């Protein structure tokens, strides 16, 4: 096997949680708010369906082909040529997504905090740090995720500091235009939750396999709960103008002012958010490296870490020319592009694999009957 390290199921759950929520928590609420208005707290619940379905598909496929990642088993499911093509699609998808995530992270930092720093510096330093982690392997990424998981949740503790600014009235009128706006708002978080398909790359390296599915589902529940809570929180603080902000969470945290000492927490929130983004980027980067080395049938993935890191850097520049285009991609393309590759394509793989298995067992039954 390429990767000799093992992670525990709970580590995998935390990795998946951070991989989805780290970037989501900043950009999703604003977009959701644009469509769902004051029903935005409902949207993550619809989106959770997408996450659950993706987890179920990835886990079924894993049960059929244990110890193999999706790049490896797609060859077995649909044959060598088509399988290689699908594998390439997965790798390219995650390579592009890694670059995209790095870029949006860098744009966020430059727009909000380091206005004069060239964006390439922010991008390159992050990729360098992630290279460090990816070289160390899945075990180290898992442990880092486990350590950063509780830290990432610290900002939730700041929410009570805003009780003064919260108005529960903003919740009403509930479902003014029916369920449709909230379902529209669920498309973007749904796209994010389809990233749960990362599971298919991590499951083969989980030590306690039997808990793999449940901890992935816990990750889906965790993401949903956190997004719902954040949505409630910004709704109560900002009211109907949520849709006007790009990063409403940051804006809401700026309201904090207690005893003229706990003020301007947004720098602290950003610092903690960087930890989550690091885990997210490392996982995407790692999955790309692992998938590529399996696609090339290499014996060690470490020699691919640097070249792919270089490509991640390039893709972060190529993915979009400016911030607004990136936002368009997030709103109009990704809700369909993400689930297409990560949920629909695996679903087809699952159906074909199931039919094949059925055919095989029938054949075996037939031959067995003939021999009798």
């Amino acid at each position: 096997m390429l990767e000799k390290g093992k992670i525990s199921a709970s580590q995998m759950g935390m990795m998946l949680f951070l991989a989805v929520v780290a970037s989501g928590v900043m950009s999703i609420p604003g977009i959701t708010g644009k469509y769902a208005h004051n029903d935005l707290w409902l949207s993550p619940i619809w989106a959770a369906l997408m996450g659950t379905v993706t987890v179920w598909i990835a886990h079924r496929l894993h049960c059929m082909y244990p110890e193999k990642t999706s790049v490896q088993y797609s060859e077995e499911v649909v044959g060598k040529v088509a399988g290689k093509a699908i594998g390439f699609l997965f790798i390219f998808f995650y390579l592009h997504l890694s670059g995209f995530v790095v870029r949006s992270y860098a744009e966020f930092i430059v727009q909000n905090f380091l206005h004069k720093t060239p964006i390439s510096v922010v991008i390159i330093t992050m990729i360098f740090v992630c290279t460090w982690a990816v070289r160390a392997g899945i075990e180290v990424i898992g442990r880092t995720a486990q350590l950063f998981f509780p830290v990432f949740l610290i900002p939730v503790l700041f929410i009570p500091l805003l009780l003064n600014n919260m108005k529960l009235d903003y919740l009403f009128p509930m479902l003014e235009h029916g369920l449709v706006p909230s379902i529209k708002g669920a498309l973007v978080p749904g796209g994010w939750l389809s990233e749960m398909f990362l599971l298919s790359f991590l499951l083969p390296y989980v030590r306690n396999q039997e808990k793999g599915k449940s901890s992935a589902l816990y990750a889906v529940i965790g993401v949903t709960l956190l997004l719902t809570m954040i949505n409630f929180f910004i709704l109560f603080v900002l009211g109907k103008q949520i849709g006007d902000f790009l990063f409403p969470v940051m804006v809401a945290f700026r309201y904090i002012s207690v005893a003229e000492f706990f003020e301007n927490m947004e720098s602290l929130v950003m610092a903690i958010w960087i930890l989550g983004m690091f885990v997210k980027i490392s996982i995407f980067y790692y999955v790309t490296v692992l998938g590529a080395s399996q696609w090339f049938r290499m014996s060690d993935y470490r020699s691919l870490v640097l070249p792919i890191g270089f490509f991640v850097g390039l893709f972060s520049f190529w993915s979009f020319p400016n911030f607004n285009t990136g936002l368009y991609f997030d709103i109009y393309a990704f809700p369909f592009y993400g689930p297409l590759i990560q949920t629909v394509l695996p679903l087809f793989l699952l159906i074909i694999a199931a039919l094949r298995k059925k055919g095989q067992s029938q054949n075996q039954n037939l031959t067995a009957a003939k021999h009798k």
Partner: protein
Amino acid sequence: MSGNPRKWWKANKGRMQQKHVPSHTPLEKNIARNEEILRTLYTNCSDVVFRSFLIFGTTPALIIYIDGLANIEEMDARVLAPLMQGRGNTEWRTEDFLQKVIPISKWQEICSLEECVESIASGYPVLLIDQQEKAISIGLAKWEKRNVEEPVAEGVVRGPREGFTESITVNTSLLRRLIKTPALKMERREIGGYTKTCIIVTYIEGLVEPSLVTEVNSRLSRIEIDGILESGYIEELIEDQPSSPFPQILSTERPDVVCGNLLEGRIAILVDGTPFVLIAPTTLFSLLQSSEDYYQRSLASTAIRWLRYFFTAMSFVLPSLYVALITYHHEMVPTSLLISMASSREAVPFPALVEAMIMEVTFEALREAGVRLPKQVGAAVNIVGALVIGQAAVQAGLVSAPMVIVVAITGIASFMIPHYIAGISIRLLRFPMMLLAGTLGLLGIMLGVIMAVVHLCSLRSLGVPYLSPVGPLRVQELKDTLVRAPWWMMDTRPKLLGEANPHRQAPGMKPGPSNGGDAT
């Protein structure tokens, strides 16, 4: 000397490994011949004494010892006197001697010249007798050694005050006095071509994972070096990740610390000639724990541990945090504080990063000077340091007062780490952190922290993850990491590699009036 150093080493190995003594040369019957060989070996060794005499006035014999290593008074009274003055028939064997004439409990028969030399070097006089193929090594060694004193580097308020000494026999006896079971094993070996330093690997059978002992032994037998003068040599030669700034093997001079670790299933390595004993495997958290934590009340220990964790983190990031706040993130500082900081920085000609660097380097210089200087001069250094980097530098407008406070807190924080060596590595890391903070602000600090965490996550000490029990998480063991649980709750031992004897004590020992006391 050119070409491959490995080849050169293989060809010239013998030179290092003291081949002056031919290995396994049996002693000869003729005592004059033996004496001649030994005298040639010890040419120009003025400290080696050869004393010839006649046993019972008839048989020639020779006693050889090193002046200062052998107990001469005892030897004269117990060995020479009975042999020279006593009477006996001429038909006797060496064994009879030892049973009837020489009243000494520790002795050994020697057959080869090599053993002879070894015994003499260890301080045991050797008795050669004419017409006998076996010599006797007499266990009368005695050399100057320090008394058992209180350890200097690891002080405690409550707890034993004994510390290890330079003598390995004293050290093993200190351990044996605390752990009396025969399961306490001590495997002896010699390392060092010239020094022949005695190394003892000790562990408790049944508690330690056997694979761990094999691993330590195989790593030790890899060592081919001319001399071992301190356990630091061994530490650097057997650790997992030699390029890491973090020590992966704990060193201590306290017998109670060693015993506590042995009882948790770890291995200790004693080295002759140093009071510092190595303990492996080690985790980051055991570097941050003091033996006193286990002797105080658990609540106090828990609070002190948290204080220690907090200040350890501070010694790592505080100066860089200050630099980042001053340079990039003014908005995070409350306004009134910002105004007073700005006014004190007004006259300072340097950017915050340079200011911080100057002060931190000066602090390190002062610390090093304080350790190394003779005590009489040390006081002068302290005064000069306090005046120059404290008062005068601020008044001269070279540094700002808040910076002095930051440096002082960082310094105190780094001395809170109970193991001095670990403190040094964390203090070293704060310099790159300051550079990162000066260039990228808070983002730089976070990137530095991430890199440190990733590195710590990938470190192992003899196969045990360095950050356990936190990463990977072992909830059972957090009772001795996040808190110091009271002893009646410490039912299980930490799981290092395997699960050799996981239970430490009987469960449900919580004391109380209805449980153990006089129930009324």
